[in-house]
């Protein structure tokens, strides 16, 4: 559950005409760190923090054996290897009729830390006078476990064969055992004989939703309201679980009462949880609408048809942590809105964490260093859904940062690139973003270096900003190597929604070529820059990462949907490249500038179903049950050709030429995606009356839609056939 979801609770409550609920009630998701040895402390400090801010939800429960610890464990509201004194003190204060303790005022310094005192007093053990069957007040939360992967220092003597995953770990999201996950994410590395300094391991985290009291003084609440995010529809049952916040006022010390009334309970709670990230877990499951600057990103998301354009979160099949290698200028520091990034040597660039600045939403146009360029590329791809700043196109992507020195001579730049390609990428890396262009003096083996990644990694190259119209065999690398199956070259477009053109400014413009592959907006792309700031960046460098991130989503969706039958099988980079090309939006204004059109992420990631738009306006998505094996295409008469339906990837009507544009895999073998993807710009469809039947699904309901071939305005094939 995210903050945005909590808005629904607020609106439901507001209909009951209760003035207090005019302010949104926030519900945060809390998550433990995944370290078993600190879990008890983390949960205790969570409860104490909530108690001290007046946000602890409680209920009544009956003791079974006279010990509150046993009750808490049985009720599922406490886990861990011991029972912390802070929690004992808190429970004692909640049950003062049956418990007393020494109330020694906490030091002034401790009062500033919501987790370091209990109601303004030092944590002390309670003197309980209870017996079995007695009813007491306990925290009221429901915990779930989730298994995720994290990069940690390698345990002593670590090998993938000997490693024992945590007992509670559930690796079914990866469709393999946890041992297999460990093996997959920690492959042996070429020319590396020493043990890796860090490894990727599954951890079990405990998570729970934390409702907070409506709080008029909360700046966070105000900021969320200002985003204008529409509330989701109420839950079908219309019910909202009532939250019974503890009323601990009588247990607060006078010092704490005085201090706490000066603060927004919501804001101090969020700050406390955020600042004490390591010891108490993290707040990290926000929705896209929680990003303060997401509203400013909507125009871009609309242009590339990203689900975030409707402020909708990505569906689960897009949550696989696909790795993206990014070749960029060196970044020294992390960013409050970027994930922890890895370097090839296993070191990490982490967000500022405990020194996280307030806000994390400052837009600063004077951010023009090479490091700003690097941070900008990262942000376009994977800025986090964390209630800060912006959101990237694939927040689940894992970034691996390869240092690339733009100030080196051209041939040295390429030599470095070749060396990195030859060494190879970590296993999880399936996409590489190269927002760079170099004209080599001599052949440095770049083509071979890219080609050896053909089976594993899609290389996304920026077309360059010289404003040149280029031809095949041009000299800018890697953009001009896109004849390789695993290289896709991206031109920059302006922000015209209906009639886009190659981006051009007063001083620069996107290179173009009828042989380059796809376009994406390159103007004023809001993204992260150094020093925890944001800026609008321009150039093909910021178009390419949109395609790189989109590619990672296609890898995620494709391998989730179609990866069941062959364990370990990976989607080929060519399949992803072709998918991005034939799912683009085509515009006459881009003819001769690029071989397809503008990136359309929504169409690309809908990998499972055929997508139809009919001339009558209907949109039909589902499984094709019946269609002509071949259909006539071309001028009427004996010269017409007969494309094989199973090899058609896209059939879209060109309003200007009154013909369809056809993309197909050029092969006699039906359904083969390995063949060359060809484009026929002038297909006059002459198969009019052949019926097409599509099985559509709406929840558990399914039905068959029927129409004729002549009704098809736009058809996109699924990534693979069923």
């Amino acid at each position, binding site marked *: 559950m995210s903050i945005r979801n909590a808005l629904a609770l607020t609106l439901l409550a507001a209909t009951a005409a209760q003035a207090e609920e005019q302010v949104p009630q926030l519900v945060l998701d809390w998550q433990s760190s995944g370290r078993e040895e600190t879990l008890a402390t983390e949960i205790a400090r969570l409860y104490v923090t909530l108690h001290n801010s007046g946000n602890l939800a409680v209920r009544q429960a009956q003791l079974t054996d006279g010990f509150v610890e046993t009750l808490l464990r049985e009720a599922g509201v406490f886990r861990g290897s011991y029972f912390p004194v802070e929690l004992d003190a808190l429970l004692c204060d909640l049950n003062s009729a049956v418990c007393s303790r020494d109330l020694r005022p906490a030091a002034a310094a401790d009062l500033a830390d919501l987790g370091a005192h209990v109601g303004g007093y030092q944590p002390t053990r309670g003197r309980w006078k209870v017996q079995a069957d007695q009813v007491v007040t306990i925290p009221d939360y429901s915990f779930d476990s989730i298994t995720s992967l994290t990069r940690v220092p390698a345990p002593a003597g670590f090998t993938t064969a000997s490693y024992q995953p945590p007992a509670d770990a559930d690796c079914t999201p990866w469709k393999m055992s946890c041992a297999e996950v460990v093996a997959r994410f920690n492959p042996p590395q070429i020319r590396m004989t020493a043990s890796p300094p860090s490894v990727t391991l599954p951890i079990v985290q405990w998570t729970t939703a934390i409702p907070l009291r409506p709080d008029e003084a909360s700046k966070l609440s105000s900021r969320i309201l200002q985003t204008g995010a529409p509330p989701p529809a109420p839950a079908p049952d219309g019910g909202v679980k009532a939250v019974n916040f503890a009323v601990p006022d009588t247990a607060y010390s006078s010092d704490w009462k005085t201090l706490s009334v000066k603060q927004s309970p919501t804001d101090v709670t969020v700050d406390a949880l955020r600042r004490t990230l390591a010891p108490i877990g993290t707040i990290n499951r926000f929705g896209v609408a929680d990003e303060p600057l997401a509203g400013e990103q909507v125009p871009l998301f609309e242009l590339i048809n990203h689900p975030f354009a409707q402020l909708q979160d990505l569906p689960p099949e897009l949550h696989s942590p696909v790795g993206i290698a990014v070749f960029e200028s060196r970044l020294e520091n992390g960013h409050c809105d970027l994930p922890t990034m890895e370097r090839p040597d296993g070191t990490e660039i982490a967000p500022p964490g405990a020194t996280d600045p307030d806000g994390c939403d400052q837009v600063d*146009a004077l951010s023009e260093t090479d490091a700003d360029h690097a941070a900008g590329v990262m942000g376009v791809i994977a800025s986090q859904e964390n209630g800060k700043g912006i959101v990237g196109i694939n927040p689940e992507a894992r970034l691996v940062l390869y240092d690339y*020195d733009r*100030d080196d001579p051209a041939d040295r730049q390429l030599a470095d690139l070749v060396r990195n390609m030859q060494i190879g990428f970590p296993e999880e890396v399936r996409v590489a973003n190269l927002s760079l262009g170099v004209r080599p003096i001599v052949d440095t083996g770049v083509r071979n270096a890219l080609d050896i990644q053909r089976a594993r990694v899609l290389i996304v190259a920026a077309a360059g*900003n010289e404003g040149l119209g280029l031809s095949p065999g041009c000299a800018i690398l890697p953009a001009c190597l896109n004849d390789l199956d695993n290289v896709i070259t991206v031109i920059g477009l302006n922000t015209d929604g209906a009639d886009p053109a190659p981006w051009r400014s007063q001083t620069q413009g996107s290179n173009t070529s009828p042989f380059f592959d796809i376009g994406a907006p390159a*103007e004023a792309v809001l993204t992260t820059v150094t020093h925890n700031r944001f800026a609008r960046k321009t150039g093909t460098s910021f178009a390419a990462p949109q395609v790189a991130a989109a590619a990672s989503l296609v890898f995620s969706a494709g391998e989730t949907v179609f990866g069941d039958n062959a364990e370990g099988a990976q989607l080929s980079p060519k399949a992803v490249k072709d998918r991005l090309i034939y799912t683009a939006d085509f515009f006459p204004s881009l003819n001769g500038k690029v071989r397809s059109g503008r990136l359309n992420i929504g169409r690309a990631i809908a990998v499972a179903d055929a997508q139809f738009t009919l001339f009558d306006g209907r949109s039909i998505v589902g499984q094709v049950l019946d269609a002509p094996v071949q259909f006539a295409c071309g001028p009427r008469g004996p010269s017409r050709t007969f494309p094989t339906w199973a090899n058609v990837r896209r059939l879209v009507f060109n309003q200007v030429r009154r013909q369809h544009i056809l993309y197909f895999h050029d092969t006699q073998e039906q359904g083969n995606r390995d063949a060359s993807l060809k484009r026929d710009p002038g297909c006059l469809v002459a198969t009019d009356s052949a019926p097409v039947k599509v099985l559509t699904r709406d929840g558990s309901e399914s039905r068959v839609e029927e129409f004729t071939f002549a009704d098809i305005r736009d058809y996109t094939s699924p990534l693979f056939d069923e």
Partner: protein
Amino acid sequence: MRQAFTFALLFAAAGASAQDAPTAPELEALATGVVEARDIRIDAASRNSDGAVLWTGEVAVAEAPWLRLLLRTEGPPFPEGSFVALFTADDGRSDLALAELPREGYWTDLLPNGRVRLAVVTGDGTLDPASALVIDSLSYPGQEIAAYSAHGGNQITGINDPSVPEEIRRLGRPVAYLSFLAGGRSGICTGFLVGRDLLMTNEHCINSDESCRSLSATFGYEVGVDGKLSYGRQYRCAGYDPRLTSFDLDVTVVRLKDGPGDVYGMIDPATASDDLTGPMAVIQHSGHNATRTKEVSLVDCAIAAAPVNGRAVDSDFTHTCDTAKGTSGAPVLDLAGHFRGLHHFGFRDDDSDIWTENRGVRGPLIRDWLAAVLAETTLSEGGDATHP
């Protein structure tokens, strides 16, 4: 003498177009860069950014080691406090106040690696629609590299090459890469410090207010031992004084702002003598590589004959040190660092001509001239001639 010089230039121009004619001598060893008109106008209608930042954009020339922009303003003045920020490839930033840009334009410093990102900041004031910042022209080095009078193979060596002794490398610290623009042309020469703020080069490099105004003297413009191109600090000219120029000796001294001698030291002309024996070194920005970073001629480098006629009778010596375009204004030193002369002429290899050796102006003539003009100019301004 000036007539003879003019004749030589015309002769060179004529020879350049005749494929089968004997190769004509080329006198001045300055290199020329490229100047391109751009006329990019940034005004209120150009807005592409938020708030106080009116416009951001990038100018780049592929593969150029550096770039310079001619910036000027048009129309009513920009609001007070307006500036253009230049973000360079080496992550440097410099802000130029728009109110202080001369109407005829200002050539920026060298912008490394041929690319710069700009941001025009106008503050909170209202920008008159007729006010504009104009990127008038840009300049970058040309690609021509001509070795002059090379003895055997051209043996110019990078200053940080392992074969170069440390003491020679140290002697090169006061030597600067000069870029200037005058008469619509871009020139590249070598210069060196002869005082805390006095830079010496050839008269045929810097000889006017215009060339002085646009002069950028870059110290530490070198390829390091790690193979990386590095820039030291750039210094601008404080003003051109025709009294500090000698046409006959082909020498000019200009004052640089901010006293670079405090950082880079100096080559002392007072060490000059007519002892012309022994191996020599010419530390230069010659263009042995395309970036014209600091290099040195050490191998087969000696003074061959002296005196010989240069621009003046008996003003020159000939030398066998390898040079190329861009070496103009380089110091000729003995290996102890004593000043032996000022390189100024180079010639294409051609046995049919009497001009077959590189030429330097004799050190003692430079020494005596400099002492005299400094005494004259400094005393006339009430200064101390003993501390240039």
